[in-house]
């Protein structure tokens, strides 16, 4: 909320500095996001009296002697066409700061410091200034818009600082208003808070006016949708003379960023800022049927707004109509057909309360925002609706631009602007705060906030003004008390009356953290990616049309198509992360992520989807292989005290022969493999990438498995190295399985070498294993181990035609 200090001072005597006021506002809940002097960039500019002014031959320039009072008399060269001897103009002294302008003398191009200069051989000690150079527009100071020197009044004191006379010493507060205080979305609303916090009297804006006997016979106002428009008031103004607003009004509007248009329109804008009530003025001559009707639009109905755009409406939008046609899009923008023109001679003012939700939705749906819609979205109170109409009629009289008729229509669905009585327990207020605020302080604070408090025993009774719709319970009262009493009075305590609770992570949370730390220990870095991804990611993974991953939940209003689907796999984000790294020159590394995938039971959603935590690992670089990734899988198994088995599998985005399904006790828990070459190429990967994804929801059934201690063997273990020659298509896993089956004493089998070459047949390979035999009840003899080996070889021979390498 942009609030000029000068405007605030109309309602409150402010005797503190702008910085002190900022501090006060901050402490009572109004953060000043920006505080600056209007003329913050202007310094050392004084009133100068031009004593002599001589043309410099063959140029448009003049050389002047300028009396700057106490600062001295200076020779200054000037190119403006309105410089003249005897005139008073702003002089930027040497060392002054003013705005630099482009060649058009209108466009500001930053701030400049004035130095001594020389033009056409004439020395110049300063600069005579235009309005633009001082940041003063025509609306802020009459005459300042002239493309030449800003002419100061004849009685301006020579040598005096120009800032006060141009209003450049004013201050602007940009105040953040929280959503619970729509009543402070106006300068007068802020003034109420300022008066309370400074403990000063609040001066009301003048609301008086005199009605003439003029009226509109039979004029009717009706509201068909009271749910969207709880209050609608209209007042007829005759003898309207459209013209310019007075300088004071134009200046105030300029300070809050509004251009003056014409007196009647300016009055509505002024009241929007002053009281926070959007108003609208219809040219009465354009209204047909002697009526105003507020109703929902029909589907497909059209209106052309003030900005000459045609909008197509739905039943969700609200229209103000005359007896025949729509004349305004309620709360958002007036219709082109009823706008105020120079020829307007009679006006119908509207001051209404529209449901904020309706205005917000209309504004968003149609992409049409205005100061009015922005204000309505935050919520307008009854109090302002009534006050604003009175203020508008007062200003019509004050500006002498019309006569106030006696035709006033007010459609009210039963809301009152009278204060509501609210009684709360003082004890409850204090118990909420945890301190005891003395009753006299409570009374003082509530009085300052215009709640007219009375205390009877434990009961505090307030008369809550209609604009304070947020005040409902003792908690609201507690907040009012403490924000004015001061949060520094809160004494730190540590839940003396609370019961002891035992906190901490649960098993799932602990296990996920253990997994993360285990992955860090193998050199992987944790990543966090967005929970949404792109439809193109599904294509990247070459997923078929009927893939379960394609049944992803879509955002209704995504930021972009790239972030429009809820993830059904973490693999795509990981591949993209690796691609980004490779683009930046990181050609090797290990990354992992634990995040949710979102599997809907049906689309569109009618119940919570299955949110499943997954683990995704991505490793890349020349050193990585299927087996380094398998090592990471084994690390995960070890961390969870489980063992994994692996089976060949294929999917659409991994290498057909370097991909494994991971099973834990026979249950599928995930997959890993080498990224398919076409995808690696598409992502411009320069080194091989391997990706793993595991379903932590399934794995969680093994969380918390405790290690079981096996007593150390009483008798010595025996080891045998066996080199087995088999045909090339037999896998290590097959051999291991048969060996384990063949002898119950085997406790470990480790492959340590594979040989293919001249020493054995061309279609064969030799696989060398170390087999560990652990005795149970009695020690082995040399013969017993030889017996085991024989048995193993026999089984291998039977199953695979395997032989011991000679």
């Amino acid at each position, binding site marked *: 909320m942009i609030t000029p200090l000068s405007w605030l001072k109309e309602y409150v005597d402010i005797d503190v500095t702008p910085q002190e006021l900022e501090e006060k506002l901050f402490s009572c809940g109004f953060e000043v996001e920006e505080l600056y002097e209007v003329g913050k960039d202007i310094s050392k500019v004084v009133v100068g009296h031009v004593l002599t002014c001589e043309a410099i031959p063959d140029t448009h320039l003049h050389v002047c002697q300028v009396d700057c009072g106490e600062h001295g008399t200076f020779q200054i060269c000037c190119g403006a066409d309105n410089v003249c001897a005897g005139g008073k103009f702003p002089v930027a002294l040497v060392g002054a700061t003013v705005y630099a302008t482009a060649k058009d003398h209108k466009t500001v191009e930053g701030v400049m410091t004035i130095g001594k200069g020389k033009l056409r051989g004439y020395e110049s000690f300063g600069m005579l200034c235009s309005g633009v150079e001082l940041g003063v527009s025509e609306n802020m100071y009459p005459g300042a818009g002239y493309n030449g020197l800003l002419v100061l009044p004849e009685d301006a004191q020579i040598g005096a600082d120009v800032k006060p006379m141009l209003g450049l010493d004013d201050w602007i507060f940009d105040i953040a208003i929280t959503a619970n205080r729509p009543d402070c979305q106006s300068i007068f609303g802020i003034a109420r808070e300022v008066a309370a916090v400074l403990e000063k009297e609040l001066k009301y804006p003048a609301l008086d006016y005199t009605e003439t006997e003029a009226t509109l016979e039979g004029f009717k106002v009706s509201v068909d949708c009271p749910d969207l428009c709880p209050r609608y008031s209209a007042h007829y103004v005759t003898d309207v003379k459209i013209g310019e607003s007075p300088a004071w009004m134009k200046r105030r509007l300029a300070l809050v960023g509004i251009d003056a248009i014409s007196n009647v329109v300016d009055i509505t804008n002024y009241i929007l800022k002053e009281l926070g009530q959007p108003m609208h003025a219809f040219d009465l001559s354009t209204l047909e049927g002697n009526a105003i009707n507020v109703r929902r639009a029909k589907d497909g109905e059209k209106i052309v707004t003030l900005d000459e755009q045609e909008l197509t409406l739905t039943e969700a939008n609200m229209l103000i109509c005359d007896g025949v046609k729509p004349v305004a899009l309620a709360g958002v923008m007036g219709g082109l057909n009823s706008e105020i023109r120079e020829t307007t001679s009679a006006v119908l003012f509207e001051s209404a309360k529209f449901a904020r939700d309706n205005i*917000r939705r209309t504004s968003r749906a149609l992409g049409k925002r205005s100061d009015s819609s922005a204000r309505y979205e935050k919520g307008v109170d009854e109090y302002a609706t009534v006050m604003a109409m009175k203020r508008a009629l007062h200003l019509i009289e004050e500006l002498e631009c019309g006569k106030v008729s006696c035709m006033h229509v007010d459609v009210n669905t039963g809301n009152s602007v009278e204060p509501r009585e609210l009684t709360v327990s003082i004890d409850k207020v204090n118990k909420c705060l945890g301190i005891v605020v003395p009753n006299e302080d409570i009374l003082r604070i509530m009085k300052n906030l215009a709640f007219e408090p009375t205390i009877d025993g434990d009961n505090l009774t307030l008369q809550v003004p209609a604009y304070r719709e947020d005040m409902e319970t003792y908690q609201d009262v507690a907040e009012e008390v403490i924000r004015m009493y001061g949060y520094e009075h809160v004494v730190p305590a540590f839940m003396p009356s609370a019961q002891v609770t035992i*906190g901490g992570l649960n098993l799932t949370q602990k296990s996920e953290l253990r997994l993360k730390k285990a992955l860090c220990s193998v050199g992987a870095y944790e990543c966090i990616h967005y929970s949404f991804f792109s439809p193109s990611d599904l294509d990247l993974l070459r997923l078929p049309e009927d893939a379960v991953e394609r049944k992803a939940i879509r*955002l209704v209003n995504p930021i972009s198509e790239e972030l429009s689907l809820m993830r059904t796999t973490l693999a795509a984000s990981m591949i993209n992360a690796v691609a980004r790294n490779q683009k930046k020159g990181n050609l090797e590394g290990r990354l992992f992520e634990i995040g949710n995938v979102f599997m809907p039971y049906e689309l569109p959603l009618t119940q919570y989807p299955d949110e499943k935590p997954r683990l995704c690992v991505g490793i890349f670089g020349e050193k990585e292989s299927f087996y380094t990734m398998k090592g990471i899988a084994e690390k995960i198994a070890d961390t969870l005290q489980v063992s994994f088995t692996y089976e060949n599998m294929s999917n659409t985005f991994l290498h057909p022969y370097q991909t494994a399904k991971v099973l834990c006790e026979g249950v599928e828990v995930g997959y890993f493999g080498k990224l398919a070459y076409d995808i690696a190429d598409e992502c411009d990967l320069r080194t091989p990438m391997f990706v793993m994804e595991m379903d932590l929801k399934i794995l969680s059934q093994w969380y918390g498995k405790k290690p079981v201690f096996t007593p150390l063997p009483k008798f010595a273990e025996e080891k045998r190295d066996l080199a087995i020659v088999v045909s090339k298509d037999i896998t290590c896993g097959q051999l291991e399985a048969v060996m384990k089956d063949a002898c119950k004493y085997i406790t470990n089998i480790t492959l340590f070498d594979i040989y293919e070459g001249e020493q054995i047949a061309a279609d064969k390979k030799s696989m060398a294993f170390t087999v560990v035999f652990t005795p149970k009840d009695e020690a082995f003899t040399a013969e017993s181990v030889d017996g085991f080996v024989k048995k193993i070889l026999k089984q291998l021979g039977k199953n695979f035609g395997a032989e011991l390498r000679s």
Partner: protein
Amino acid sequence: MNANLEQIKQEIIAGAEELASSREVYEFKKKFLDGKAGKIGLLMKEMKNIPPEQRADYGKGVNELKEWALGFLGELDVKMKEKELQARYEAEKIDISLPAACSEEGNLQPITLVRNQLIDIFSGMGFEIYEGAEIETDYYNFTALNTPQDHPARDMQDTFYLSPEFLLRTQTSAGQIHVMEKQQPPIKILSPGKVFRSDDDATHSPMFTQMEGLVVDKGITLCDLQGMLDVFVKKIYGEGTKTRLRPSYFPFTEPSVEVDCSCFECGGSGCKLCKGTGWIEILGAGVVNNKVLENCGIDSNEYSGFAFGIGIERTAMLKYGINNIKLLFESDLRVLKQLND
């Protein structure tokens, strides 16, 4: 002195000159002192050929020679070994500025680091950790939190919708309702998790991480909130850190406060980090609005509570001096490797 003994002594002295390694010293020593087989040992065998009256002197002479030889060659052995050790070290001279060879240890993401740190602090204060769902209903995210359909607070957050009913939670507070519906006080929970708002710039990401705390029990007041925050900021930002409450607004708390802590960079004197104010905004908090308690079936006459919400990214960015929130989600190894905490 037997001339023979003297000759052996000279032979040892002369021979020692030629020795180049401790191995040679060993071999040389063996030649003279290998028990009875060495040259000196053999001298003792000569005893029988020595006239009896000279035998005592002879024996003494041989023993003296043996002692001397042991000492002389022992000393030589020590010197030689020292020399050899030195030479071995010299031979293994390396360039210590060559790159280190180590197995790389990865690291947790900065958001997880901060999250874990906060969890540690609050676990110690008796908070359980509850992670709710990312996809929520309008009811749990807004309505139950005292933010009905047309409430202006809904404008504060741009919500991603999945259907008219389902949305991506905009705040972890949503999870608290689930907890309060299932559990009667005492409640002390901390809800960390991903939340989503339709915002995208240098300080806003459409997904970010919040950590919401909730305490509901008998007699909980604003003073307890202040007390807990004091402990929290001291643990995370250092002993001398102070807190300041100032009024704010959240639909689910009343009174609501913004909490600032004294700037941990400058200690409160004003610097670039705190924009000269001496204070840094760290979280929003307040006394739980009774309407929220009642919505969950908790009797607000008996129980009261406080709640607070911390932005994890903001805390991480402040802590590590990260200037763009996007860096936290890009998984750039050059960034991740730096933030090893």
